[in-house]
């Protein structure tokens, strides 16, 4: 017991925060990418144009079936060799890989939410002469958010934790910096405990937007 060295956490704090910052950057950008791509995929899946449905279903099938780490390696080694993507930095490749993977899950979550809206809402909108574009935006999507938020947020917690696989392409985010620090100080228990607590704080903080959104989109009774 007595040979623990907790002050090592304090001495490493600045570097741990550097890693945390990169973790949050990876998370934020890949979340935005996954959400936008997921929304597009969900709308494609519900389109009346069958090639769009086919592409969307294929995307979800592929990226749900591949480990996120493999997708990440593809983004790192393959995507950067593609003609238009040579400008990708390793960090951007990480964001891309994580986002592309998470988009498959977001697509399914958003689709389930959109499908949960009573078909009568589509019919009432159609009967009033609204365009599909208009009523999806004003009638269907706002009602689906209530259903989407809880699963969307727990999936986002998974994404936040999944950023740690970016170690595998050499990114020094929170897990990466912690491993480097523990290698140099020989204090893995203290440092990984600190990292675990930081992850726990971050994932707990995600409850705040969740509660806000749930309140914002609750039906008034």
């Amino acid at each position: 017991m007595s040979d623990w060295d907790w002050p090592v956490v304090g001495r490493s704090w600045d570097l741990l925060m550097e890693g945390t910052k990169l973790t949050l950057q990876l998370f934020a950008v890949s979340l935005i990418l996954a959400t936008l791509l997921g929304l597009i995929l969900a709308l494609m899946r519900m389109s009346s144009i069958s090639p769009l449905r086919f592409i969307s279903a294929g995307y979800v099938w592929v990226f749900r079936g591949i480990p996120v780490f493999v997708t990440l390696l593809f983004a790192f080694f393959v995507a950067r060799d593609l003609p238009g993507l040579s400008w990708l930095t390793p960090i951007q490749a990480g964001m891309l890989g994580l986002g592309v993977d998470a988009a498959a899950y977001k697509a399914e979550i958003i689709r389930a939410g959109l499908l949960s809206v009573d078909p009568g809402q589509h019919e009432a909108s159609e009967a009033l002469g609204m365009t599909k574009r208009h009523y999806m935006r004003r009638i269907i999507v706002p009602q689906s958010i209530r259903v989407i938020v809880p699963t969307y947020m727990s999936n986002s917690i998974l994404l936040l934790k999944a950023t740690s696989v970016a170690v595998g392409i050499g990114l020094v985010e929170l897990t990466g910096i912690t491993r480097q620090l523990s290698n140099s100080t020989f204090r893995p228990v203290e440092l990984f405990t600190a990292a675990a607590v930081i992850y726990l704080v971050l994932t707990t903080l995600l409850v705040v937007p969740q509660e806000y959104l749930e309140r914002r989109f609750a039906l008034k009774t």
Partner: protein
Amino acid sequence: MALVNVSGLRKSFGKTDVLKGVDFQVERGEVISIIGPSGSGKTTMLRCVNLLERPTGGRIEVDSRVLCEEQANGSMTFADKAAIREAREHIGMVFQRFNLFPHMTAVENVIEAPIAVKNVPKPEATARAHELLEAVGLGHKGDSYPMQLSGGQQQRVAIARALAMDPTLMLFDEVTSAVDPELAGEILLVMKRLAEQGMTMLVVTHEMGFAAEVADRVLFIDHGRIVEQGPAADVLQNPSHERTKAFLHAVLDRAPMEAEVEEAAEGLVDDLLVRPERIGGDDDGS
């Protein structure tokens, strides 16, 4: 010319033939009740009139717009999307289960389509929404959300929402059957008012009292065909077909509803008289 012209209307779902050749016309200002047993195709027929259901045969024309037409080779041609939307602007529909937008207040429900579809400026749409809500006896409920309203109140908001588009034709599909029986009267009273204002109405209903009192004509439909149609009094009191007789016999065993309407009228009529002439945007309220 008739406002609605339906001829040879057929609709099947897969192998099930639901409508097997339906012909009818609706004159301007006419109120038609559609009655018939459960599963006979009443809802399907009504939904074909605004193309919520795509017919598999026949021709539908509403207000001189051809919505669909069967070609000589049996294939169907439909009006294009924009033309269908344009036609729907003039065809109000009220559903059995209200289908109000639950995330919007009563006023927001009513103004959404006029603003989005007809580009009515928001202040104007809002003023009109308040008038319409007042006309259906809900002037004080504009800021309520659907879930804060009773079924009868929700359905009246739904009627106001449809009227806000200034339709020339209103479709009603069993609009009282999802509400408590004691709340049906307030909805029926609003519909009766609307009929008196000259609105053209197609009303699928199980309320024989309404059919008898308000409808100009009654269509009796069974197994996807119109079995009998004619003036309400004839069809309801002297049906000429056995099936009509059997059907009426079965439903008239239930309590008549005139009493309910009168009762509801007691409480409501004041509200309604605030602006009765506004219903249907028709200024001659006598």
